[in-house]
Structure formats: structure tokens, C-alpha cells
């Protein structure tokens, strides 16, 4: 081994790392396409970082100029519209992909020992991605940004004892304004991406250490695969992941080019105006369930329910501790996950129609 690659290898051992994790890695027999979804999400995250950095070249992070700078990106900066639409559309599809990944993992029982920590870091990633989406929402400083942030931050007042203080801490004052914008910008471009990258590396390392869970088989409790057995990762799964990543890109580009307003209601084209409350302000589709719940039950109860839901999500591996993984072998867990899924979909649809 010689040359620059050899020099680097003697110091980092990258060839061995590459061999162990890619060219000579093996996956359980019967592994299906669901495995690729995680890699699609990693790709989507990388795409967000790349397009986000490009947008930072032209975005002006000040409330007085943010809306105008976004307008400039969309109409004057060469291919600015393309980069911004990819950033916003891929973010929405990524959130949808995360929900699908979460429910597939829950229904296939892949969170069970020894993968509890992988599940917990995955749930943490979901919350951080929602935080990313929410903080990114405010940055264009449109009517939608301003009022949806007002609605979302106002919901913190129902936290017992410290509710009002929490609202003011998040907003940086009594009302949504310049301090809120600066907090969101810091969270969106520094705090959350750094945290996300860190947790993502941990999540992937845990997933690699335990290996992917084989597809659940009725009546069997297998949760791993013997070393050396299984299907070679390269080229079979490299191609499989590649196919799904291309499909994801096609989905993003199809909406970017042919349905550019899919995720942009009318209010997102108007500059923020604290003195003009638009009717029917709603958060993005992935938070509609949280928007709809307090409209149907008392607000404090809705906060308790959301707390229970999030706690239950993180605690799932410790609630369903039996060895069985097939959905039909653990009907109580499957029913609860399906009920949660139905509740999420119903609340989202009702929130959309409200």
C-alpha cells in the first residue's frame, strides 16, 4: 500500500473500517427494503445541510430584512429558488420519512433488546428534526412564520408552574419578535444541526453494533444474525439503498418542479405583520395533531396527553419487554402502536380540515 491513500490508511485505518462496514459487512437473510429508509433519511439530512449552507450565503438573518432576502433568493439569485425549494420540500418529505421509519420500527418490534438505545436515540432524532423544522419555519419571517410561531410558543403556557416564564424565555420577551427570531436562527443553524449530527452518529454506531434487526417471523424470537452469515452489504444493499435514495430525490424534485406550493400556504408569501392576525393560522402538517388536540379536549389535558404520548414513545422498549417481535405475537403492543398511528392520522386530518 503506497501513495497518499496508504499514508492515510497507516494513520487512520480507513481501509479496514471501509472493509468491515461496507465491502465485507453482511446483513441478515431476508432483510427487506425497509432497511434502506434509514439511509434515505441520512441522505436527506446531508441534503439539508448542503442546501442550508448555500441559502446562508444570501439569507439575511435579521427580522427587518429576512423576508425580503428570501424573496431575493426566490427571484433574483441564480437557481436560488431551486435550492430553497429543495431545502423546504426535502425537509417535509424527511419528516414524513421519519414518521414512517418510526412506525415501521415500532410495528416490527425492532426496538427490542439489544436495540433499546438505538430506538431512544431515534426518538430523540425525531424530536430534534421537528425542532429543526419549527425553528426553520420562523426564519422567512412571513405572516405564517410569525403567527404559527405565536400559536406554537403560546402552548408552552400550560406547562405547570413555569408556563408563562417558559413562553417568555422561548420568545425572548412577551411577544414573538426579534429576540425570538435570533433564538430560532441560532437553534436552526448551530445548536440543532450540531446536536443532530452528534446523536445521528451515535444512532448509526449503535445500529451498526447491534446490526439491523432481521424481519420478524411468526413464532420466532430471533433478534440478530450470526457474524459472517447473511447477505453481503456490498453490492446488494449499496444498490438497494441507492435505488431508494434516487426514488426519494425523484419525489423531492417532482414536487419542487411540478407542485412548488405544496407546502406553502398563502400566508407564507406575506411579510410578517404583528398587527394583522390572519384567519385560521395553523402550524405545518406534522404539528397539526398537536394543534388539533387542544381544540378537542381541555388544553391542560391535551398537554398531559402529549406528555404521556412522548414518554410512552421513549419508554416503548421497556413497556413491551417480551422476546416476541412479530406483530401478531404481541397483540397488545401492536394494537397500541396502531391506535397511536390512527390517532395521529385522524388528528392531522381533522386539524387540516378545521
Amino acid at each position, binding site marked *: 500500500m503506497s501513495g497518499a491513500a496508504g499514508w492515510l490508511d497507516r494513520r487512520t485505518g480507513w481501509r479496514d473500517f471501509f472493509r468491515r462496514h461496507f465491502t465485507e459487512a453482511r446483513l441478515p437473510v431476508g432483510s427487506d427494503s425497509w432497511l434502506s429508509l434509514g439511509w434515505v433519511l441520512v441522505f436527506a439530512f446531508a441534503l439539508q445541510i448542503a442546501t442550508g449552507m448555500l441559502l446562508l450565503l444570501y439569507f439575511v438573518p435579521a427580522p427587518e430584512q429576512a423576508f425580503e432576502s428570501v*424573496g431575493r433568493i*426566490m*427571484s433574483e439569485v441564480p437557481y436560488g*429558488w431551486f435550492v430553497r425549494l429543495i431545502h423546504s420540500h426535502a425537509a417535509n418529505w424527511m419528516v414524513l420519512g421519519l414518521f414512517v421509519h418510526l412506525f415501521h420500527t415500532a410495528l416490527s418490534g425492532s426496538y427490542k433488546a439489544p436495540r433499546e438505545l438505538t430506538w431512544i436515540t431515534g426518538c430523540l432524532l425525531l424530536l430534534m428534526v421537528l425542532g429543526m423544522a419549527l425553528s426553520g419555519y420562523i426564519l422567512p419571517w412571513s405572516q405564517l412564520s410569525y403567527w404559527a410561531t405565536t400559536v406554537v410558543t403560546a402552548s408552552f403556557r400550560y406547562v405547570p408552574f413555569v408556563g408563562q416564564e417558559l413562553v417568555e424565555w422561548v420568545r425572548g420577551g412577551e411577544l414573538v419578535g426579534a429576540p425570538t427570531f435570533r433564538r430560532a436562527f441560532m437553534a436552526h443553524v448551530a445548536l440543532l444541526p450540531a446536536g443532530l449530527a452528534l446523536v445521528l452518529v451515535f444512532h448509526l454506531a449503535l445500529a451498526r453494533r447491534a446490526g439491523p434487526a432481521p424481519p420478524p417471523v411468526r*413464532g420466532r*424470537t430471533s433478534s440478530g444474525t450470526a457474524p459472517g452469515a447473511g447477505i453481503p452489504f456490498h*453490492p*446488494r444493499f449499496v*444498490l*438497494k439503498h*441507492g*435505488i431508494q435514495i*434516487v*426514488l426519494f*430525490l*425523484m419525489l423531492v*424534485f*417532482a414536487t*419542487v*418542479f*411540478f*407542485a*412548488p*406550493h405544496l407546502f406553502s400556504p398563502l400566508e407564507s*408569501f*406575506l411579510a410578517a405583520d404583528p398587527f394583522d392576525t390572519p384567519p385560521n393560522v395553523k402550524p405545518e402538517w406534522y404539528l397539526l395533531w398537536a394543534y*388539533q*388536540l387542544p*381544540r*378537542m*379536549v381541555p388544553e391542560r389535558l391535551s398537554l398531559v*396527553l402529549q406528555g*404521556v*404520548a412522548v414518554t*410512552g414513545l421513549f*419508554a416503548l422498549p*421497556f*413497556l*413491551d*419487554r*417480551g*422476546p*416476541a417481535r412479530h406483530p401478531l*405475537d*404481541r397483540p*397488545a*403492543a401492536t394494537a*397500541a402502536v396502531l*391506535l*397511536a398511528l*390512527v*390517532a395521529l392520522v*385522524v*388528528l392531522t386530518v*381533522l386539524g387540516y380540515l*378545521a
Partner: protein
Amino acid sequence: MTRRLHPLWGLQLVWALLLAAAAPGAAQLLDPEAESTCITCHEQEEEELAVPVPEWRESVHALHEVSCDGCHGGDPREQDADLSMSEEAGFLDNPSWTEMTDYCGVCHEGIAESYRLGYLGRNLREGVRVATCATCHMADGHRIVESRPEEILTAERCPHCLGVDDPQSELARLHEVRALELATAAQVRAAGDKGMDVMGLDAGRRAAHASWMLSVHRFHDEFIEPALRVARAELAEVRSTAIEYERRADERRRYGAVVLGALGMLLVSLVLMRRASK
């Protein structure tokens, strides 16, 4: 095979059941109309008093949620008709023709001011019975439509009342600018339908409309012709930008088709490579 069920499952089940039980409640949305006693009572009255309700439902006021009390005052939540239409509740009733401009001008401030400063406003102050807001805009009762000069300013409706030398040729010029405005609106809509951000263009079109409408309500040659000249120029600029936007939108779609086609070919190649690797 043993299965252990943790007690916390019960809590999760309660959560899910509560959600499911609460769902039907969402269908009971409040109907804003049902809250107005003006509407519920007048609908049951004799023809003359009932007819404003269906007319109002088709009006621009209903579209923008300006209900009866928005113009006539009163308390639309009061069940008793006398109390609802009492002086204490701020009931205004119908204005006389001399009060009309002040009455509508509460909301339509700019137009009312323009009217007062113009030919008809001056005549009104001198006690001449001239056309006021309702003469043109309520010719169809409470079915007040959005500002549509082509329907309001017709040769049949206003052959005499304009303070201009040649009302018919003035109408023709107004209609020509209006046609340009409609064509511009259609062009802006076409660009918007293809995914372009046309809020700025639409705002420009609306500003041009508001500007020449203000001048037109002065009803005098001195104001109308310059206003029409400016409106023509502004609308032409908005229209040409909208045409450029639509061209860009079409171009983007063509790029999109090429990009998707390339990705499709990459996809097919990957699928074939995967089959070959089996």
C-alpha cells in the same frame, strides 16, 4: 414463549381511547352565521325584510365576513329584536341619501374622501340630488359585488350623472382600462397557478386598481384621464412581468422533466445492476 405486560400499557391505552373518543367533537364547528340574530330573525320575516339575507350571502361583504351589524350597527347577539336594534346597541338603520357617503365611508374611507372632493361630492354639499354609493353599488340590492366597473358603469345605468363632457366616451375609456386590468389579473393568476410567487405582482395590480378607482370616484375629466394613463402604464408593467414569470415557470417545468428523466434512467440502471448482482 412468555409475554409480560407492563402496567404502563394501561396508561397508553387510556390515552389512545381518549383521543378516539374526542374525535367526533371536531365535527361540531361553529357556524358564524348562526350566531347573528339579525340573520335568523330577518330570514323569517316578510319578503321585503327577508330579501336582504340571501342577497347579502352573495355579496362581497359576506365574503369578507362583514355582517349586517358591520354597516347597520346594533347587537347581533341580542335575542330581543327591540334591544338588538336600539339606540343603546348602536343601531344606525338605513341612511338617507345625504348621509350615505359618511355611512359607507366608515370602512371605505379613501373612496368616500375621493367622492367628497370630486364633482358629485361638491354637488351633494350644495343640495343637488346626485348619485351616491348605493345608486351604483346597490342597484342589485344587498348583492354588492366586488369592484367591477364593467357591471356598474354601463351606458344604461349612468347616461347623465358623470361630471364629464362626453360620458359615453369616458365609459369606453374606463372599460378599456378595466379590460387591461382583467387581462393582467388573468396573467398573474396563470403564473401563480404554475407555482410562481406572484404576491408581489398581485399587490402591484391591486395598487394600480385602488389608485385609478380613487381618481375615478372624483367623476371629473381633470382627474380621470391622468389616472387612466398611470393605470395603463402600471398594469402593462405588471402584465409583462407576469408573462416573464409564466415563461420562467414553463422553463422550470421543462428542466424538471429533464431532471426527473435523468433520475429515472439512473434508477433503471441501478435496478438492472442489482438484478445482475444476484
